[in-house]
């Protein structure tokens, strides 16, 4: 058992956990942040994506102890003051979900890709979105509305007031 301290969704948390515990299990079981879903356990589906120090990672790929001192944002930390993040709103508005199991990972990946493209001054067009979604699978929607949702959110997030 090792003590780990992280800032999760803005709150400092410390837990004593086994060295083999995955970040996904840490979030779900220790902190009961169950919006991070487990679809494959093996870094292939993207259902478990969270932001680690501002970058999207598959939380089933990271060990909790390796994230000591890190800043983690999960889907539960995205909306501010009860107002949906533009990416969340876009998935709702564009029917970008069916069973919802992939949705939280898709949204976390979507936010990350918009941020990265904006930081690099690149345009996130439809082809780029599809390419960027390589690590997130959805069995229900056929991706049509997911791509639409990310495009809409990208446009909204480009507006200066929607920063972060």
């Amino acid at each position, binding site marked *: 058992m090792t003590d780990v301290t992280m800032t999760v969704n803005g709150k400092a948390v410390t837990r004593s956990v086994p060295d083999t515990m995955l970040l996904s299990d840490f979030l779900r079981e220790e902190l009961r942040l169950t919006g991070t879903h487990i679809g*494959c356990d093996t870094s292939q589906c993207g259902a478990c994506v969270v932001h680690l120090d501002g970058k999207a990672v598959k939380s089933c790929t990271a060990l909790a102890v390796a994230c000591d001192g890190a800043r983690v944002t999960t889907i539960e930390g995205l909306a501010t003051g009860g107002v949906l993040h533009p990416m969340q709103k876009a998935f709702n508005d564009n029917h970008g979900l069916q069973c*919802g199991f*992939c949705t939280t990972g898709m949204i976390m990946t979507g936010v990350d890709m918009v941020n990265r493209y904006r930081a690099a001054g690149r345009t996130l067009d439809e082809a780029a979105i599809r390419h960027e979604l390589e690590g997130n699978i959805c069995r*229900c929607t056929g991706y*049509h509305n997911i791509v639409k949702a990310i495009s809409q959110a990208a446009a909204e997030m480009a507006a200066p007031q929607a920063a972060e």
Partner: protein
Amino acid sequence: MRATVSIRGGAHTPEPHESAVGHVTGSAPYTDDIPEPVGTLHACLGLSEIAHGRIVSMDLDAVRAAPGVVAVLTAADIPGANDISPTGLGDDPVFPTDTVAYHGQPLFAVVAETRDQARRAAALARIACDPLPAILGVEAALDAGAPDVTPPLTLARGDAEAALQAAPHRLQGRMRIGGQDHMYLEGQIAFAIPGEDGTLTVHCSTQHPAEAQQMVAQVLGLPFNAVTVQVRRMGGGFGGKETQMNLFAAVAALAATRLDRPVKLRPDRDQDMIATGKRHDFVADYDVGFDAEGRIQAVDARLAARCGFSADLSGPVTDRALFHADNGYFYPHVRLASRPLKTNTVSNTAFRGFGGPQGAVVAERIVEEIAFALGEDPLTIRQRNFYGPGRDVTPYHQRVEDNILPRLVAELEASSDYRARRAAILDFNAQGGVARRGIALTPVKFGISFTATWYNQAGALVHIYKDGSVGLNHGGTEMGQGLFTKVAQVVASALQVDLARIRVTATATDKVPNTSATAASSGADLNGMAALDACRKLKARLVAFASDRWDVAADAVAFAPNEVRVGDAAIPFDAFVKEAYMARVALSATGFYKTPKIHWDRANGQGRPFYYFAYGAAVSEVEIDTLAGEYQVTRTDILHDVGRSLNPAIDLGQVEGGFVQGMGWLTTEELWWDADGRLRTHAPSTYKIPLASDRPRRFNVALADWSENREMTIRRSKAVGEPPIILAISVVEALSMAVASVADYRVCPRLDTPVTPERVLMAVEGLRAAGDG
């Protein structure tokens, strides 16, 4: 004041999914998210490592001694029946006792303090078996004379043999059609919690809570009323949780009752894929006779399926394959036979379409063969063979009454500019480049109803609380398809209240009993009608109350948006309900529905198994690289019939998602068992479902807005879950055209599915070699 507005979120409006906000915020819980009570244990299954053999010994001492292990359970621990066969055939043990029937079959369960401990312990088992010869695939089973797992079906009309001999043209062929893993993103899971007096509650990701309840009760030797199975939502089902969750529910329940502690069983993705059944793969042999115009005179076909070691749902699945082996085409003389073959593989099961898509693929192959033989545009041959007045009897003797497919196809043909694009593609291919293109338009006709007639019933429960809020419960399950949203919209319209007033609660066997699986695309048809029945009862009581209370005629009472009109007065719905409560009106009602008109005589292959048909059509265009076999779907246009849509946004999502899932089945998703019967594609790393980048470059999807169900279905809508899978055949046929171009379309490439890039390349090279020779 008269309200002129209508309610918000009524039927036929494009409301977001009822859990959409929960899903985008991560606050909509699945079974694995339910808080675990203190003392919860975790189970893991131990799987067989051979495909077929007699069990000599099972040494589980090391498993028992492993850290954290609380118990090891085998067949000997089962107090009731060691059988979870959904059709009561007794061929589906929880754990086998003497013979291993497939590689990956669960043999025992280990229960430990943590999931990790259980998984590590399971690996320590030492199972000794005397191997027996294993039959793995369809062709091997046919060659070896393997038995059927369940009685086969024959559909016949006219004299196929005589008509084949008399036909001006005749050809035969064989097609291999691959299976498909469900790859629901939320895997199988069951969480059993013991209750008082020998009862228990099982939270389970299931499309069929009543069956999970029955199986748990049967395995534990309990009456059904001692077991409650509950599910609020699934992270996808697609048929994979219609029977396949029974094992997980039964094992979790067995462990929980033995140990008197909550037990969760969530296999990892690999175990899930190895130990649960899939879409059946088929080998179809067809013999078709036709005239110089390409009109079919007779079809004789045999559809043989790999069913696995037990029947599961293979009987109705292979039946449905035959029911759809005509797709949209009239066969004047026909004989169709199924072979549900027993193999030493996992027991195949329901998968969206339930055999229907496999049947439709065969029909489309037959038409394509005719087109190549006559050098015609396959669409022309399709149109010449459609059902129509006077040519409207199916191989199962049900008449096609509405005949809207020709209109739907003609509209899509025009809106997609099919003929001009095909001409342009023929020109493009004539330049002889490395890249070749293809285009195809294929139709869908899908029969709606369970062929097990008694399954076509549903129950619902509607409460109006005295504050005017509404509670809705029914036997259907939510797996992402939007069923809860649609049924709530039906209730909103019936009671004339805003959708926001209605809360749908988890499907549970102690609320609505004896329900059917949410399957066969029937969820909204059945449960919508049952909920409407409950609303009608409540409204009748409320009308009687109002006419009595305010002394007006019954027809002077009307449900208007969020209010009730009584004579000239308009009373807000909540105030009205409060009054009704004070007057002691019963504000809770059950509803029931059974589909009318249907009947089926399987022994004679005759009847009306389907209440109605749903239709659709798709045009897909592809480009292949003839040197690499790689390809891209450049454009797909779809026109689909959902009758009068209950929710156009949800229905479009079903069509889009169904098409892409069908495309995965027919192009990239390849299940591969090695010579020892071990599934080698048991994770998304090796089993490739479509990615965002695989979607057609241009994707135009529309609903046929003029369509209305001729039958009295719920608000004249049609079922939408399964039919869109069949739209994806257009991709296969477009690929076929592109491949055929290398030999100037003289030969039908006879592509087997999935049409992987490898198969495209092999077909191109095969045609070129034949052309050189």
